């Protein structure tokens, strides 16, 4: 597309054309109205004067007869810039006046008419237009009185010329202005297009230029930039996940394959084969669990799980998870206790339960106190506390243990997918527990906070509490699930 072609296709330019047309129409109708009214006014003036003169001359004729008439008309016809006069005999022969020739048939009809004429007293012999009135005198004589229309024509010419010029100026200014505005807009759009093309080519870090005027284009650019920001974050997340999947899923897959290969190569007893197969199944179950956890995280992060949201109390979740894990903790030589006060939530109960379960499992797995240097009594050190409470407009669901904890520098890192801190490498687990808990918290507009329990770890799901207004405001966000 040529630059000009692009220019005239812009919305600004098209709008300019539409306005130009509308204004031209308006100006033309204004001038037409003006012209028409002037013409009417002039015509009225002429008829009035001609009528007055006609009745005056008629009176002269009635009083002084044909001779008096001829005399008066002869006199008047000689005045400079005079009206038109003509007297004809019944046989059509002109008897007096200043009219040299007329359009044919004018004298045949009485009343008003417009005609071309030549004056007797003018040398140029040019033809003019005139408005004339023909009256029948007694015994077949006819009298014509008229007035030249030159004035009216001139006026018309002025109006027409004015219309031409003003239209011309309007079109030039309009199109010029349109091009000016369009080019300004087009330059900005071109800049945006350039950036988007770079982004489409793969450079996700590109951002649209945002001006300072805060107009609609700036707002659009701002929004697009925010969208790009989100897309970039998601893409990076995705890339990270696929890298991690490649690494952390390939390892167990390789192990699985090696084991099967080894069993196949070695001629063993049926019991050996059976054991190898059992280990294979165990390994694949672990893989499936990892996949499920990854899918769950992806789903929570993409916000798809917003479907099954309802109202419940975090205290019930805490009590339920405590009830489920209490025997397991006890078998591991830990004590699991719960402190739960009313903490109303609106959310996906299943996901929040699972997030809390992950935190509790982590505490049981990794929260065993180091044997030496225990500032707490050994019994207190082996205690894991689940707590649910409301703090202002937040609900806190926390799990506290008195194990080695996580050094502050590692905490942010620990939440990432597949990250298993050095200390925990030897214990079984997928490294997804904290990421899932974090994804669930994010889905509910909250976050997962890791803190220090002096000693130990306190992992807290910080979630927005349910309140009447919040609930009312949120309801439209919750899509109705239809089976």
């Amino acid at each position, binding site marked *: 597309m040529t630059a000009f072609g692009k220019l005239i296709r812009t919305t600004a330019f098209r709008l300019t054309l539409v306005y130009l047309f509308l204004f031209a129409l308006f100006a033309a109708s204004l001038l037409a109205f003006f012209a028409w009214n002037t013409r009417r006014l002039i015509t009225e003036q002429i008829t009035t004067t001609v009528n007055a003169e006609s009745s005056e001359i008629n009176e002269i004729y009635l009083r002084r007869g044909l001779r008096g008439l001829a005399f008066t008309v002869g006199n008047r016809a000689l005045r400079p810039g005079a009206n038109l006069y003509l007297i004809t005999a019944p046989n059509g022969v002109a008897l007096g006046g200043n009219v040299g020739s007329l359009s044919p048939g004018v004298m045949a009809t009485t009343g008003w008419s417009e005609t071309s004429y030549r004056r007797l007293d003018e040398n140029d012999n040019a033809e003019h237009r005139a408005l004339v009135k023909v009256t029948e005198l007694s015994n077949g004589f006819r009298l014509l009185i008229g007035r030249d229309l030159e004035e009216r024509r001139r006026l018309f010419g002025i109006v027409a010329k004015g219309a031409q010029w003003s239209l011309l100026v309007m079109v030039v200014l309009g199109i010029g202005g349109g091009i000016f505005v369009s080019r300004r807009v087009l330059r900005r759009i071109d800049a945006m297009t350039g950036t988007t093309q770079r982004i489409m080519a793969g450079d996700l870090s590109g951002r649209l230029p945002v001006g300072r005027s805060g107009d609609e284009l700036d707002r659009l650019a701002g929004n697009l930039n925010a969208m790009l920001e989100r897309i970039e974050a998601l893409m990076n997340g995705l890339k990270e996940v696929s890298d991690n999947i490649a690494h952390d899923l390939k390892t167990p897959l390789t192990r699985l394959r090696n084991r099967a290969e080894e069993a196949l190569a070695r001629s063993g007893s049926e019991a050996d084969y059976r054991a190898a197969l059992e280990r294979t199944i165990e390994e694949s179950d672990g893989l499936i669990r990892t996949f499920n956890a990854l899918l769950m995280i992806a789903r929570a992060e993409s916000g798809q799980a917003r479907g099954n949201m309802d109202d419940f109390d975090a205290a019930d979740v805490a009590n339920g998870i405590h009830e489920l894990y209490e*025997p397991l903790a006890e078998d591991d030589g830990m004590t699991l206790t719960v402190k739960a006060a009313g903490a109303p939530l609106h959310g996906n109960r299943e996901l929040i339960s699972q997030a809390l379960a992950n935190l509790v*499992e982590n505490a049981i797995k990794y929260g065993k106190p180091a044997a030496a240097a225990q500032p707490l009594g050994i019994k207190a050190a082996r205690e894991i506390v689940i707590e649910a409470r409301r703090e202002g407009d937040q609900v806190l669901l926390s799990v506290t243990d008195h194990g080695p904890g996580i050094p502050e520098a590692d905490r942010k890192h620990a939440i990432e997918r597949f990250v298993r801190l050095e200390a925990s490498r030897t214990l079984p687990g997928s490294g997804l527990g904290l990421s899932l808990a974090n994804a669930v918290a994010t889905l509910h507009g909250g976050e997962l906070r890791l803190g220090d329990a002096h000693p130990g770890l306190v992992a807290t799901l910080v979630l927005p509490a349910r309140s009447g207004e919040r609930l009312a405001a949120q309801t439209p966000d919750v899509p109705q699930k239809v089976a």
Partner: protein
Amino acid sequence: MVTELNPVTSAVNPSPNPSMRLLIVEDDRESADYLVKAFREVGHIADLATDGEEGLALADSGDYDVLVVDRMLPKRDGLSLIGALREKGNRTPVLILSALGQVDDRIKGLRAGGDDYLPKPYSFAELLARVEVLSRRHGGPAEETVYKVGDLELDRLSHRVVRGKEELTLQPREFRLLEYLMKHAGQVVTRTMLLENVWDYHFDPQTNVIDVHISRLRSKIDKGFDRPLLHTIRGAGYMIRDGIR
């Protein structure tokens, strides 16, 4: 449908339950053949349909105890098959198999008229246990108030549990766990079935939480008695039954 348990058959293989007629609707030929073969090996009769239309026609005409339906099928998807069947008044229990394992999908499947939902990949032991429980529900008698297995009795109204002449004290959750096991006495119940039905959680714990609860229950109902009633079925789950009768 429910007859006396056959005391001779062993725990899982072949199934201790009377043979069932199953319809498997699954378009992946390999998994379908595997399922048919596996069900036949444990003594059930299994028919196969490979698309939704065929599945609907067969399910509608045949007298099946349980339908095992894949969610994504050619010609007519699993949920629509179930919908059409239910509209005709056919109440055969349906277990939905699906690669979509998320909570929302599960709920969608159950709302559409499915009776149970099992995400892929699954173990056959899990599928078998669930299908057998469904089948019993289908033709079973009205729910009894007192469950009896050997000399163990559970009264669902008074919440009393008696073994022999001894009254046992159970925690509320232990009671519900035992109630669920006894309701399906003689059938294998898997860990996930217990987590779903007793605790109402649908996630997969990374630890052996259920085993710990079972061992606590076991210490209450079996400890000090000659005949254990609560059995661990290796690779599958648990079963309560009176082994020697």
